[in-house]
């Protein structure tokens, strides 16, 4: 037994010849907020997919709450909630129905479920829109609903994959307030990916920096700046990776598209 709630060892994912995630190892302690920081195409989403049973690793292991994600899929699926990078709600259902169906799929009992749905919908300020079809919602509202949904079954770990993409700055702040509050209130471990340095710096207690499928640094925001003798985290990031975080976004978006194509045919 060990105390890490997420325990990743020598995790690798190859798509044919392309190595998306290259032998990474890290651990997250219960109750921690960890940011997985890297440019687009660094391997963040691929890692999260392996952590959440959507993708089978080429090699290496992932344990959530001490159960292996490949050999104990259903057990690990119970332990986490997730907000995906792209929307994953049913637009043709109402907000309330989306949460209700999630609760049933996760086996949350009715009396607990209905109370929890109300509590969470109030928490993300969507209770007054509970009977509206999701297709009438804005991007920010959908994101908030997805956060509520991901928390419905009382997960121990909450994964968020680039949760603020496409949101305006105000909604973004709002969202992070929810998440940090949640961490305090329910002691949920939070693991999120981002390519916004300021977000990682502000929200996370610890940052894991990933680039080209490799972990290149890990530490508190402060540690990372001190270690590299930098004034800002942005500068530290530059020193670690040899490039600014946004430089690569165009070319690596293409790389990511190519990668998606690759695994579609496999």
């Amino acid at each position, binding site marked *: 037994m060990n105390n890490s709630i997420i325990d990743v060892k020598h995790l690798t994912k190859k798509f044919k010849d392309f190595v998306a995630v290259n032998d990474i190892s890290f651990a997250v302690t219960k109750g921690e907020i960890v940011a997985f920081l890297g440019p687009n195409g660094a391997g963040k989403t691929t890692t999260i997919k392996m952590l959440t049973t959507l993708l*089978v690793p080429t090699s290496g292991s992932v344990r959530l709450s001490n159960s292996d994600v490949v050999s104990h899929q259903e057990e690990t*699926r*119970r332990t986490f909630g*997730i907000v*995906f990078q792209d929307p*994953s*709600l049913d637009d043709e259902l109402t907000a309330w129905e989306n949460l209700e169906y999630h609760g*049933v799929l996760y086996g949350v009992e009715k009396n607990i479920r209905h*109370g929890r749905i109300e509590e969470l919908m109030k928490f993300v300020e969507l209770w007054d829109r509970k009977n509206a079809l999701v297709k009438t919602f804005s991007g920010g509202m959908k994101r908030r609903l997805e956060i509520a949904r991901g928390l419905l079954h009382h997960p121990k770990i909450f994964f968020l994959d680039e949760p603020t993409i496409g949101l305006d700055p105000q909604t973004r702040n709002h969202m992070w307030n929810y998440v940090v509050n949640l961490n305090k209130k329910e002691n949920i471990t939070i693991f999120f990916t981002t390519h916004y340095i300021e977000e990682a710096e502000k929200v996370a207690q610890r940052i894991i920096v990933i680039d080209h499928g490799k972990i290149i640094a890990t530490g508190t925001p402060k540690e990372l700046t001190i270690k590299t003798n930098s004034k800002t985290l942005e500068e530290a990031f530059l020193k670690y990776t040899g490039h600014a975080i946004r430089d690569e976004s165009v070319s690596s978006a293409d790389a990511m598209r190519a990668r998606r194509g690759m695994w579609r045919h496999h």
Partner: protein
Amino acid sequence: MNPSHRRMRCGPAEACGGITNMSAIYILWLRQLKRYLRSRSRIIGSLGQPVLFLVALGFGFGPTFQKAGQGNYIQFLVPGIVAMSVLFTALFSGIEIIWDRQFGFLKEILVAPVSRMEIMIGRTIGGATVAMIQGTIVFAISFLAGFRPPSAGNLAFAFVFMFLTAVLFTALGTAIASKLEDMQGFQLIMNFLIMPLFFLSGALFPVDSLPGVLKMVVAINPLSYGVDGMRGALGGITHFGLSTDFAVLSIMAVVILAVGSYLFSKIQL
């Protein structure tokens, strides 16, 4: 409201499997039904073709059929047209998997702590229910065209075969869709499948008088057993016999469900 409290009652996967299973299947079924009932255009749009076939063929060929001593063509044709609408709706309900994939909802289902078999069953029962509603509407319309079942009991018996046909082809459509990424590909495969399945099933003409090779083709087409079963249940002449129809449909449905569950467990996003 206390998380640990809930976990005690409904612990690791197996412990509460029995309860979760049925409710997961139920909720997947309910979702499909709600989506269907909310899209009126889908309900009405998919009735056009069967009604056209019923009217054009039923009244067009009716007199010739009768003259040839084969009896009332509408009575003969209606089970075939009902089977057709069930076939279309059931197979095409597989496309919802591809929608879910494109709109992201598939991820939500795949990370849920629900066995892939339950997902497959839930979806199949959902799609089959929708197909049966369509089939029932076609039955109702056929009354206007002059169709009369011998008794209410016969009609109920026909629904057994309608259900098996719906399950079989929903499972088939879903299994195929689980391997596909885009709607065009799915539509292509469906067009390739649907017409031969329908025309070579004995839905439109009696199988007995077909040449040997064609008879064989009809015999390997699962829809033939659905049509034959419904026709027999409604007091018509069966070609294979009702127990054969029932056995073939049930066994095939189970096999395809199992294959579909396997394919579902292999989906990676």
